[in-house]
């Protein structure tokens, strides 16, 4: 095993832009098992950061620390900090309910509510008491998620009547309707066919003009195609972190190189 630096610093990371989110020495335990080991990372605004690594490397667990979804898994313990701007989201005075309004999440399997397409998108803003014209908000979110043209005539139909790829875009629309600062995506294409995957990838490319996106993926080509920064995780450690192009063409660590070349994983 190669020793791993606790916080890999890369000269090619932007030094002038301040990160929108940061984790500092973040560790996550499930009972006695340490799933994430002192992970430090910066997420920059209006970029896509891809987290790659073999199954069970802790990348999804790590992502769920960004909006405190691990709070709902009994027996988890967190060490270290996660910052949104300058606020540690694990500080005792932070309300995780309010936090999740600013950090949206898209899940592995499309999980629309068994309600109409309209209510799928409108529900989040409604329960958060957001003001303004709801119809316009729903339309805006559906347009931004490239779903409007396909559903504008059937907004009252169930979200479950859509195809898998459309359902996932509906879930993205639902997240966008909240106008979050950051969107977390946990392998959003793993349950989709290649055409639907392509559409979601195009959509992610569009969305980064306005949002910061962290995407966990087991698909290295996908990371190479859509991300600006790539994080390689292995057995709970962040092995390497840097601009995607450099990670894929000139990795510093041998483990990263082996994984990218397909020698394990």
């Amino acid at each position: 095993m190669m020793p791993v630096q606790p916080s890999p610093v890369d000269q090619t990371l932007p030094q002038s832009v301040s990160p929108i989110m940061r984790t500092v020495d973040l560790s996550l335990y499930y009972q006695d098992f340490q799933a994430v080991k002192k992970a430090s990372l910066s997420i920059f605004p209006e970029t896509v950061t891809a987290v790659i690594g073999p199954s069970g490397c802790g990348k999804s667990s790590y992502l769920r620390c960004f909006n405190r979804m691990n709070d709902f898994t009994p027996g988890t313990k967190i060490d270290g900090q996660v910052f949104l701007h300058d606020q540690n989201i694990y500080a005792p005075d932070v309300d995780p309910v309010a936090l999740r309004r600013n950090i949206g999440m898209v899940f592995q399997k499309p999980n629309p509510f068994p309600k109409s397409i309209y209510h799928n998108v409108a529900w989040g803003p409604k329960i958060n008491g957001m003001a303004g014209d709801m119809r316009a908000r729903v339309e805006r979110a559906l347009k931004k998620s490239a779903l409007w043209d396909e559903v504008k005539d059937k907004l009252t139909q169930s979200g479950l009547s859509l195809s898998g790829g459309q359902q996932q875009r509906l879930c993205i629309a639902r997240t966008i309707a909240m106008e979050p600062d950051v969107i977390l995506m946990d392998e959003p294409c793993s349950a989709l066919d290649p055409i639907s995957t392509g559409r979601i990838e195009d959509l992610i490319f569009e969305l980064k003009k306005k949002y910061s996106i962290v995407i966990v993926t087991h698909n290295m080509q996908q990371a190479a195609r859509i991300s600006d920064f790539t994080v390689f995780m292995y057995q709970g450690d962040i092995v390497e972190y840097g601009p995607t192009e450099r990670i894929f063409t000139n990795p510093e660590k041998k483990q990263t190189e082996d994984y990218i070349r397909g020698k394990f994983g």
Partner: protein
Amino acid sequence: MTEPSLEEKALRQNLRVRHKKEKAFKFLCMMASAFSLLFLFSLFYNVISNGWSYVSWDFLTHFPSRFPHKAGIQSAIWGSVWLMGLTASLAIPIGVAASIYLEEFAPKHPLIKMVEVNISNLAGVPSVVYGLLGLTIFVRVLGLGRSVLSGALTMSLLVLPVIIIASREALKTVPDSMRYAALALGATKWQMVRDHVLPASIPGIMTGVILAMSRAIGETAPLLIVGAVGFVPFNPRGPMDEAFTVMPIQIYNWASRPQEAFHELAATGIMVLLVVLLAMNSIAIYLRHRFQRKNL
């Protein structure tokens, strides 16, 4: 054409035996279901042939009497209606709320685990025991008397475990992905339960409630102990009315008389009870289907 090999022959022989075994098993299972159906229909036949002669509008509108041709079941029907109405309005909200707490909010704590185990145990406690509990607490300690309300409170205790267990099972069938979707949008747990988890589990909860209510409407023992009586020639006027009867007690009362005519009246009473039960179940099934459709 080539002769099948020895191995092939053995395989075919074996296959024949396997098919025969399947047929035998299928037959056994069929007999088992036919057996229970047979008993159900012979029960129906028995009840209807005994009770048919007393079926009339008068039977529903008359009060009990010592003359069989004048006797009716009106006070028992109204007693059951009062009792079921009160029991449902007490037990359903409490039972569903308790199951929501245990399933969605309660921390994983040994104390909670103990509560869960004991609720399952309570579902198996004989109903007479609930009667004694009701007599002690509601009739004596709380001073509610031998009233409809005491009976309903006792019945609520009896059916609560059934409702809680069934509702928890229904809540468990709601996939966690739906919960996470709601929570990730900044919902509180209450908003998540109210708008998604509860609507999705209503059909299952309804099934549990039907079961519980069907059990309650046929119960006799706890009510006899709490104070329902077999001969009440008037309807309950309110929850605090101290003299009331219910259908199974009225039936029991008639069946225990020596005269043959009263046995026939008991059969007629059973018919009424069965019709009420069927009606209750039909309404619940209808509501369940409506909810299921609304959810899709």
